[in-house]
């Protein structure tokens, strides 16, 4: 592992050479690096003034995991102990082991996918095995020029997953990528690309609600999705990274005519987080973005959504929920753009914040750009407070302060939890409770 004060072309060249990449990818990286150097820090970047991100960027080739149990931060060790998971699973989730005990289960998931013609591969491998297919989409959905750290991502990307679902294929169960292919998703600059051909369906679950320890403290991943006509993609992320992490996640989908894209995004962990899933909607496309975040004391969590309505009668819905505790700060940033020609397009944005303590903060910055007179945008925001009376009530029914706060949080997020597969929902609740334990100062 080495620390880099400066990321230069020779480093990028080296990454590309080691990966044995085709020429176009090498050039894409170098162009992205130039952009990174040219672009200013995004002016929307709140809460990071005192940091020099560039200095925090580590580059490592493979091993981002802890190498021993002792190396894990005590709070993460404590979590695994309290969750009473089997030793194997514990080691796996904590990133100490690369193979999962119930690999057998996943072997036949892989077989099923293969039979359907679904491609599920580490990104690096896909670049080599399906260069034309990958090249058609890679970097074209989420452009490197979007902002400085998107450019950095493209210069340094490594890891991530490629998924391709052929025309008409409906994958009947959620694909939990973490258990299938976790190595690639544990990277610092992972790039995931999903392509759904016409009429295809996929529910992809990335991440895992157990806390994940990484050696790096800056994460800058990307997900691109291309959803062809009448196809349907649901993409769920529940992320619970260590409290040392600054997290960027660059997610964008293109939703072709009549297709549907759903981003469900949740963040428990990390220290500072900037996640705004986005969708470009063509005619009659549908998009739904549903996200939640929790900002505990000392944390800064930004979430939001960006919607670009291009086609007629396209519709989008955004539901954002944030919880702030202690002096935690939650920020919602939304952009809805109605292009000229997006006739009768409609977008509805709702944004709810829950403040648990007097010092807790929540800010919302919705932003609308309307060029099409027949398009409509509705926006609703609410802020609620945990009242002393609610606390007294719950405590008078036998819940201690932490349990009461966790229950309030669970209730506030109940509609997001309902979106998760049931077994995931159960884990989610436990993690939520764990999150609030000892949170009262």
């Amino acid at each position: 592992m080495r620390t880099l004060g400066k990321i230069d072309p020779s480093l990028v060249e080296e990454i590309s050479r080691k990966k044995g990449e085709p020429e176009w990818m090498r050039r894409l990286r170098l162009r992205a690096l130039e952009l990174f150097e040219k672009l200013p820090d995004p002016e929307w970047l709140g809460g990071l003034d005192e940091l020099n991100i560039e200095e925090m960027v580590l580059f490592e080739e493979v091993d981002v995991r802890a190498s021993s149990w002792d190396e894990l931060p005590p709070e993460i060790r404590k979590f695994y102990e309290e969750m009473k998971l089997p030793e194997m699973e514990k080691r796996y989730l904590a990133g100490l082991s690369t193979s999962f005990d119930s690999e057998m289960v996943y072997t036949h998931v892989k077989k099923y996918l293969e039979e359907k013609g679904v491609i599920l591969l580490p990104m690096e491998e896909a670049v080599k095995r399906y260069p034309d297919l990958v090249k058609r989409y890679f970097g074209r959905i989420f452009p490197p020029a979007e902002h400085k750290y998107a450019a950095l991502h493209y210069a340094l990307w490594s890891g991530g997953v490629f998924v391709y679902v052929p025309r008409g294929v409906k994958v009947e169960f959620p694909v939990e990528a973490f258990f299938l292919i976790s190595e690639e998703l544990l990277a610092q600059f992972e790039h995931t690309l999903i392509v759904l051909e016409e009429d295809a369906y996929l529910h992809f679950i990335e991440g895992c609600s157990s806390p994940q320890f990484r050696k790096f403290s800056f994460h800058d991943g990307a997900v691109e999705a291309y959803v062809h006509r009448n196809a349907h993609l649901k993409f769920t992320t529940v992320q619970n990274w260590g409290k040392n992490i600054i997290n960027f996640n660059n997610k964008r989908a293109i939703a072709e005519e009549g297709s549907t894209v759903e981003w469900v995004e949740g963040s428990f962990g990390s220290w500072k987080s900037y996640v705004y899933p986005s969708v470009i909607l063509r005619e009659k496309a549908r998009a739904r973005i549903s996200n939640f975040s929790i900002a505990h004391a000392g944390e800064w969590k930004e979430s939001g959504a960006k919607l670009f309505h291009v086609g007629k009668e396209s519709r989008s819905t955004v539901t954002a929920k944030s919880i702030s505790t202690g002096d935690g700060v939650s920020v919602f940033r939304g952009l809805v753009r109605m292009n000229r020609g997006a006739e009768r397009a409609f977008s509805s944005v709702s944004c709810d914040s829950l403040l648990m303590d007097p010092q807790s903060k929540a800010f919302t910055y919705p932003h609308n750009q309307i060029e099409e007179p027949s398009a409509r945008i509705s926006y609703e925001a609410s802020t609620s407070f945990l009242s002393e009376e609610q606390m007294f009530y719950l405590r008078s029914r036998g819940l201690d302060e932490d349990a009461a706060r966790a229950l309030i949080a669970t209730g506030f997020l109940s509609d997001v939890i309902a979106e998760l597969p049931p077994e995931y929902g159960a884990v989610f609740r436990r993690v939520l409770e764990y999150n609030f334990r000892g949170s009262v100062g």
Partner: protein
Amino acid sequence: MFYKDVNTVNPVLEVKDLRARIDDKEVLRRVKLSLSPGEIKVLTGPNGSGKSTLARTIMGDERIEVVEGDILVDGESVKDLPPEERFRKGIFLSFQMPPEFEGIRIGEFLLRISGRSGPEAIREMKEIAKELGLDPSILMRELHRGLSGGERKRVELLQALFLKPKYVLLDEIDSGVDVESVELIAKKVKELVDGGSAVLFITHNPLSLKIFSDRPVLRMEGGRILENAG
């Protein structure tokens, strides 16, 4: 009877010379009260006389400052215990105006606070709901959120009937409900007491006062309980 174990204390909730303040304003002035299982005591008095404050102080509302006196459960002081521990000692307060909770379903909440689970518990819950004139589907609704005043009262009583706590403080459980409901509530409260609970029935509903006229009635005024009222 003769050989009664000397170590067994009589189960009783006792309030001893309790003085309490809210924001430097004296709201309870040397209040005395005792409540034993199998007993209903009615507490009445004008608005602002301190009835709710008394119940909340017994439950452990930290916003009320106890200046003097003590609260004992079965001989042990609970004065310095947080509300959750008083609940575990058997005290239950039905709120005059319960707050609303988003996304917390009544049924799930009941399981959670009772520590019970499984079909038997759910069946029992539904049964109690029906007896209270509630549609069992109410268990799927959010706790007090979007419920009518009368429904809230009954959902509070539902919890008491399901938990069967030893000391039940019912703060105006009969206000804002129709005549039939007042009678039904009184009947269920008697059942609760027959089952071994003690009830402090705070009310100024004339019908309830009539129904419970054979029970001890305490009257509160200006933060004091007047002797021999009723």
